[in-house]
């Protein structure tokens, strides 16, 4: 009887804990969305930020976040692919592989603020890139690389060995087998991981404060010359992202409607990440079904 009673008590406790966690979740999402969504307007999304008066928007910050995201992926995807392919296809069991794995683990365990400070020291100061999108993208690459590498490695590994043997037995080089057979088969997993990591990049702020900077100078969206200082595409200009904007508005700024800006921006951030999350699932499943021809 005693044991049975404990069983009930424990179940009760667990259900309570689960309920509490769900409540916290709903409260957080509800708070952000209910407070933020009503303030999101076309005007808010398309007008520049104001420092000293109310009514500013997040046009530049939103663009900067997306631009930085694209640049980061352009920089980190090839490196992640190379490293992931090495670890899953070429690495044998030796000290060198151990060294690589440890390096990736160390990189992934570093706090993002430390990564940001390193970027600040090396790129902003030593290499004289200044606060710039480029410095930010490189810092985010450091932050993104370990997860991306691991995701690519695992996706490649999950492709059955039989596929590798098929390629080998037909006289294909390892490289051709990997790039033309294994990689396409691993694509659903890689894509899902990539999109999820895009969500992380989009929301990251600590690594950017001292690399991409905290100011969003007015840029000209009709100037397509990458090297022009006023061009929106110029990677050498400082660029405050949406996440950094939320932090800045809350800690240092004197904008009168800071609260409104933060709640609306937070809602935008969450919605974008939500889209990334759902998109990753949807695309991954769809691609998987297409590749395996299951209907």
């Amino acid at each position: 009887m005693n044991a049975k009673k404990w069983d009930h008590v424990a179940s009760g406790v667990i259900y309570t804990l689960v309920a509490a966690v769900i409540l916290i979740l709903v409260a957080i999402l509800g708070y952000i969305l209910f407070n933020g969504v009503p303030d999101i307007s076309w005007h808010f999304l398309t007008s520049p930020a104001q420092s000293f008066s109310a009514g500013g928007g997040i046009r530049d910050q939103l663009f900067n976040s997306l631009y930085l995201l694209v640049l980061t992926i352009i920089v980190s995807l090839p490196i992640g692919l190379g490293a992931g392919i090495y670890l899953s296809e070429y690495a044998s069991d030796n000290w060198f592989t151990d060294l690589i794995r440890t390096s990736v683990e160390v990189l992934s365990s570093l706090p993002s603020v430390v990564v940001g400070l390193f970027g600040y020291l090396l790129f902003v100061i030593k290499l004289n890139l200044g606060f710039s999108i480029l410095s930010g993208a490189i810092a985010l690459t450091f932050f993104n690389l370990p997860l991306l590498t691991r995701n690519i490695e695992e996706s490649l590994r999950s492709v059955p060995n039989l596929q590798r043997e098929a390629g080998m037995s037909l006289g294909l080089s390892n490289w051709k087998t990997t790039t033309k057979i294994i990689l396409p088969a691993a694509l659903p997993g890689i894509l899902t991981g990539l999109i999820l990591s895009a969500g992380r990049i989009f929301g990251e702020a600590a690594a950017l404060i001292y690399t991409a900077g905290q100011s969003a100078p007015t840029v000209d969206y009709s100037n397509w010359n990458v090297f022009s200082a006023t061009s929106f595409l110029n990677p050498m200009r400082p660029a405050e992202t949406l996440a950094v904007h939320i932090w800045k508005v809350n800690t240092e700024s004197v904008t009168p409607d800071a609260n409104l800006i933060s709640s609306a921006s937070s809602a935008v951030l969450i919605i974008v990440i939500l889209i990334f999350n759902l998109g990753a699932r949807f695309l991954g499943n769809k691609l998987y079904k297409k590749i395996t021809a299951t209907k």
Partner: protein
Amino acid sequence: MDDIQKKLQTKSKATFQDYFGKGICYLCIGLIILLVTCILYFIASKGLATFTKDHVRVLDFLTKSNWNPGATDASGHPEVGALPMIVTSFSVTLLAALIATPFALGVAIFMAEFSSKRGSKILQPVIELLVGIPSVVYGFIGLTVVVPFIRNIFGGTGFGILSGTLVLFVMILPTITSLSVDSLKSVPLYYRQASLALGATRWQTIYKVILRAAVPGILTAIIFGMARAFGEALAVQMVIGNAALMPKNLISPASTLTSKLTTDIGNTVMGTLPNNALWSLALILLLMSLALNMLVKFIGKRGRF
């Protein structure tokens, strides 16, 4: 020698494809190793400058509680006691882990053992989403909800270790939960079947068999959660109060290593003592994350099925 015999003995396009592919992979791998070495080297050399160049004693740095790197104390030593930041960082981390663990375990047991498919199907994506919420958003919620709430109940400013703890608790909850679920799920099914067949109740099975078997995995999960809490910068910085004082209680403004770094690094001049001292804080962060990393490896080696 016929054509085929010759082909068998000479390098072909495929051979060079492989050289090429391997070359590219080595390049990427080399880049990562170079990068990690660079990070370790730069942070360490900068962080050690406080002790080598500015001759601050390591012991003073770790045990004194006056942080005012611009000034010197009565005996002429610069005031760079990092103890308040260290204590605060550890307090918020440990407290957050302490609160989060029971909740995370509860949810993990629910997801892994109570195994109603629908429950897991809903909870899983929700937890993943929670991991994905940016830390500034947590900071913002902390600032607008938690801080006023603490202020109303306990008085004071509301900024402090308690607010930091509460924010971190929510942030590390999903991390600990999802890793714990993995570790519970990896306990072989026959453990459960054997225990239930012996007449144990579900709770006895979970508590005496499954949780015990999953201890290494759960510990790893908690450590990962703590690593996240220890290294989190902005969310904490927004609610902790940022006063480099020894915390007297849980609701007085304090400062963690990360919050001190984010607030001050832009306001100091490269190469000066106040700047070097901040890099020393970064070095502590780095060493701590390495230590936690090693702890995870150690546990992973000891506890395998």
